[in-house]
């Protein structure tokens, strides 16, 4: 079950023609798929498209009614391979994932799919995780479209436009027998807006129909000689068909006056930022009226030569607004102008940054610089005064004060004690080479843990340590992989590889019962019952099945001492071959979401419930913060005491503590201090509880009074 429930949103998928759909961009895409008569959908979760997967997972009923098959694919490669269903059959299919990481994984299937081509519309929705808040390497999906020759749509970022892009995408795919990628940027996925809905369509041919009537066509299979024919087909048939479709259906848009000396070409996704910059300069209004002609590429690949060339007619210079690098579009346009012998100047990265997100300020600066040089007569005088920078002092001072706040482990996260234990074992045995993986556990590279040297891809943590396997070294490598990464790719690429190559390293599999970083989706080893998925497949069994001999399983990661001892054993044992530790405890975010209402109900219903919380005795804490250097928990923080005798702030645990136990365990395992206590509150205590409590309090109260009557007691002590 995912982190967020979409039961409410799912109802929006039922809206019929004429009704207004209001919600997130990614949900609009989901609705658009159903309106297009999609026959099957697959994908792999990850920001920013997780919600698409989550909504569909919660919408099994609707999908069932329409005969749509939905799958939470094992990986992006699986999702893309699934589109093979559209090769021979006229069924529309969609796959979705995070890009470029997902596209990297998918590219094997993508290349094969693109070679043979498709009969039914095949749409790949890539959630572009680029710029602020991104968690991945900064690359472009554009390159994948170019190298496999699949078409890439990049619509203007509003709901009606992205819904239309889904419709166009399927038709374009069918018209050109080519898969189509639809790129949506992270903010567009999360944009809140509305569009007018259409009725959902039952697919003309369902996957069931296809299963009953199998077809095959050798010419569509990637094997010589067909594969050579495919390449020729791509340029001779499919490309011209795509260009025709894009031109005739006016996928790309023109705004502003026909005649002007300068113009702007932008990716569809950049349109709103361009307009805002022009509005701030005084050359456009908020409704999109502009004095500068704009050519909006809702299809960024392939480009339409004659559209562009006619846009350039009569213009001295054209600015290409193309986020990311390399600047493929700008290069292509330059080439077109050169071949056509035109003297319109195409510019782009001269005025806009070569790399990085095109934020509001960047766009404003870039467009201003472009217009100042190429069309100064268009600019209002008052805008031209350079910005005053007299607040520079304040701001530069702040940069030294305001602390960075990178993402980290949540309150009560079960992965925290694993890394606390790793830090402790390193204190004993010295520093080791540690390879990290993708997932929440990658936060170990940040303070306070600062563990981990590289991350090479999802499920590739242990694989990325595979070179460090030397009989000459006394130390072993350590590597981490999450349960998500393990099932995505890790089982074969990391574990299988380590067994086969007799790697002697230590592999820690962090099992938190979900694909947690992407929003808590179920995976094979999830402990929850899921009515449409098969769960509860233990990781330890899979690892043993792969041939690992040394396997340890910890069912409670919060046992820091045991975790440390197990790591020590793994690092020092005589046994050869990979040492695999599976460390399991439920993701606290999901656990709280699951348990909180249950606990509240149980308390209301009069059941006996014990609720734990941790605390710090502030007069025992000496304020050295050793505990925080082994934790970083948001609920464990510093607090100033109202006491001039004390210089340093002491530890304090706030109300958000979920009582996971890490504080106490760490204090014990690292022999820190006795300041921590666990306070268990027993709600609705039974008769025996009450009797015991009464007796205890009587006795304890007596002893306390006795001692306190013989000494001085200070009211404010």
């Amino acid at each position: 079950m995912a982190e967020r429930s979409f039961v409410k949103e799912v109802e929006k998928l039922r809206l019929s023609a004429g009704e207004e759909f209001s919600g997130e961009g990614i949900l609009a895409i989901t609705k658009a798929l159903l309106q297009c008569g999609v026959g099957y959908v697959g994908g792999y979760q990850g920001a920013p498209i997780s919600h698409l997967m989550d909504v569909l997972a919660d919408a099994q009923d609707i999908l069932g009614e329409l005969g749509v098959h939905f799958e939470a694919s094992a990986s992006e490669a699986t999702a893309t391979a699934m589109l093979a269903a559209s090769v021979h059959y006229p069924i529309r299919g969609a796959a979705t994932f995070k890009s470029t990481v997902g596209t990297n994984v998918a590219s094997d299937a993508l290349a094969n799919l693109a070679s043979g081509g498709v009969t039914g519309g095949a749409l790949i929705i890539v959630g572009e995780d680029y710029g602020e808040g991104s968690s991945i390497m900064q690359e472009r999906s554009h390159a994948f479209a170019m190298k496999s020759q699949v078409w890439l749509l990049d619509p203007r970022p509003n709901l009606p436009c992205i819904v239309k892009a889904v419709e166009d995408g399927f038709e374009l795919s069918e018209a050109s027998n080519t898969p189509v990628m639809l790129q949506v940027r992270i903010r567009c996925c999360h944009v809140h807006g509305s569009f007018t809905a259409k009725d959902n369509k039952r697919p003309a041919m369902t996957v069931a129909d296809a299963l009953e009537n199998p077809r095959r066509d050798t010419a569509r299979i990637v094997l010589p000689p067909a594969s050579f024919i495919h390449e020729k087909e791509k340029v001779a048939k499919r490309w011209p068909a795509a260009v025709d479709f894009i031109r005739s259906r006016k996928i790309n848009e023109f705004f502003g006056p026909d005649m002007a000396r300068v113009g702007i070409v932008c990716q569809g996704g950049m349109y709103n930022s361009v307009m805002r910059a022009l509005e701030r300069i005084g050359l456009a209004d908020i409704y999109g009226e502009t004095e500068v002609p704009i050519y909006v590429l809702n299809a960024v690949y392939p480009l339409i030569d004659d559209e562009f060339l006619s846009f350039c007619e009569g213009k001295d210079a054209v600015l290409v607004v193309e986020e990311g690098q390399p600047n493929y579009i700008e290069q292509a346009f330059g080439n077109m102008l050169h071949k056509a012998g035109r003297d319109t100047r195409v510019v782009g990265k001269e005025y806009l940054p070569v790399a990085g997100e095109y934020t509001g300020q960047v766009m404003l600066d870039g467009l201003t610089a472009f217009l100042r040089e190429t069309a100064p007569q268009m600019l209002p005088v008052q805008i031209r005064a350079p910005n005053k920078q007299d607040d520079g002092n304040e701001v530069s001072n702040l940069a030294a004060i305001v602390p960075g706040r990178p993402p980290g482990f949540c309150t009560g996260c079960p992965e925290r004690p694993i890394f606390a234990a790793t830090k402790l074992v390193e204190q004993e045995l010295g520093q080791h080479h540690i390879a990290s993986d993708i997932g929440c556990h990658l936060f170990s590279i940040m303070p306070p843990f600062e563990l981990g040297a590289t991350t090479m891809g999802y499920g590739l943590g242990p694989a990325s340590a595979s070179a460090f396997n030397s009989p000459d070294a006394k130390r072993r490598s350590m590597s981490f992989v999450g349960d998500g990464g393990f099932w995505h790719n890790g089982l074969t690429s990391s574990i299988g590889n380590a067994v086969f190559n007799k790697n002697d390293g230590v592999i820690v599999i962090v099992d938190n019962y979900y694909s947690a970083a992407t929003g808590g989706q179920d995976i094979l080893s999830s402990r929850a019952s899921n009515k449409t998925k098969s769960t509860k497949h233990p990781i330890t069994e899979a690892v043993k099945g792969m041939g690992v001999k040394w396997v340890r399983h910890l069912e409670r990661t919060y046992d820091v001492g045991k975790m440390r001892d197990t790591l020590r054993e793994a690092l020092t044992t005589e046994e050869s071959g990979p040492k695999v530790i599976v460390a399991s405890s439920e993701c606290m975010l999901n656990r709280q979401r699951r348990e909180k209402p249950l606990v509240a109900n149980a308390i209301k219903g009069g059941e006996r419930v014990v609720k734990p919380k941790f605390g710090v005795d502030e007069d025992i804490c000496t304020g050295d913060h050793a505990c925080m250097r082994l934790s970083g928990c948001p609920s464990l923080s510093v607090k100033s005491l109202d006491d001039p005798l004390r210089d340093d702030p002491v530890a304090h645990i706030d109300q958000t503590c979920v009582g996971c136990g890490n504080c106490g365990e760490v204090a014990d395992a690292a022999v820190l201090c006795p300041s921590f206590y666990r306070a268990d509150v027993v709600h609705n205590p039974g008769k025996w509880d009450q009797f015991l409590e009464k007796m205890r309090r009587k006795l304890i109260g007596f002893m306390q009074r006795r001692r306190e009557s013989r000494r001085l007691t200070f009211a404010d002590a």
Partner: protein
Amino acid sequence: MTVLAPKTPKLAADGGIIKLAALAVGGQGGGVLTDWITDVAERNGYLAQSTSVAGVAQRTGATIYYVEMCRDTGRRPIFALSPAQGDVDILIAAELMEAGRAVMRGFVTPDRTTLIASSHRIAAVSEKIEPGDGRASSEKVRAAAEQASKRLVAFDMEKVAVDAGSVISSSLFGALAGSGALPFPRETYEETIRASGRGVKASLAAFAGAYERTRRLVEEGIQPDAAPAQSVKISSHGVTGPDRLIMGWQALRARVDAYPEAVRDMAGRGLQKVVDYQDLAYGAEYLDRVDQALKLDDVGREYALSIAAAKHVANAMCYDDMIRVADLKTRSTRDRRVRKEVGVKDGNILQVTEYFHPRIEEFCGTMPAALGSYIESRPKLAGWLDRRINHGRRVRTDSFAGFAALWFIGGLRRWRRKLLRHKVEAEHLERWYKQALDRVASDYALAVEIINCRRLIKGYSDTHVRAQSKFDRVLSGLPLLEGRPDAADWLRRLREAALKDEKGTMLDGALKTIATL
């Protein structure tokens, strides 16, 4: 150069897009707040669009939400998807440093931005892990926020929310409404909260609290947080105990009252701490030590030496041993404090588990000095004992057996002076104190700084050992510094370096620097 012709405006003027950005720490409920703002705008006949960057940014990191809204004229405006520098009307910061971050990023400008910030702090990991006080300066950020914004509404909105049993999104929403930065009436905000359907009562209470506080602030220009933090004045009231002890206490208090005004407060606190730790005689011993400093002190230097001595001698005398821990954990005041902190309601039962991990060192420290030293000097015996003692122990202090065990250890207090730990601590104290006082005549400021180095000693077990080593390393710089006019300043720098990181890497660097002086 081209002459710029004035432009004739023919486009619709800025149709009045209101731009609002919210900066929060992941997990603070920024998404809920954004939904509410969008809803209240739509309720008032505005078109609104919100965006956010979810994903890993949600996991306790800094996050940003953005809303644009515009009166519905029948045409769809083009909204931007992210805030731009110098182009934000309202900036909501759910934590003070996030307000600082907003200023840094240029989202707060004096010509237009209303900055609504909760003044409470959520310390970042980097601030928490320093062995000293690594927290960023709130005052400086606040001052910058005030300067950078057109209007600043800042108070502890987290507290307003928690007091009402709600979360900060409600009080931020209330402050937004109260600020009047959006042209929407209060009722429509409340309708939005009601329509959201969860925890409505508490949300409305937090909303109202923040709303009214903001109104007062806007109307009267009062900064609710402006009052400086006042420390509780120490008094001789509130002391209870047998008459004989009370009389003894008053006699000691009288000695403090005879001290110069400047020293009185610190010495009074120190005295209370020491007496509370041990007994009246110990208090007298403490005052004797403070007297030593006073005798050498100088009114011209505002008694800096005596004040430092009053503070650090008290801390040194109240070293953290097992007896103290056990004593503090078995007091009735502690029981009450835990109940309050945890919020135990009537009818519920509290169970308290303590985490102990004694080692042979603590065990020997609690032995009579001779016996303790005997064991410590025999590594084999000590090792054998350590294997039996050195385990984590969970003690339930709500149970009789657990409580009684600690109560017994706490009761060893009366023999404390005869125990090994006391002997070690007393010798250390004397050495350090003498080292300081001996230098008063030659370098007063250096003497004060030597006393202040006591701040370095803290923690238990290994942490304590590390702290001791840092203390020794800092003072090892003394021979190099003595005689220099800036010796005190250097010693202070060494101490501050020692508080920067766990292992003392910065300190080692600083020591290398002074070696080259």
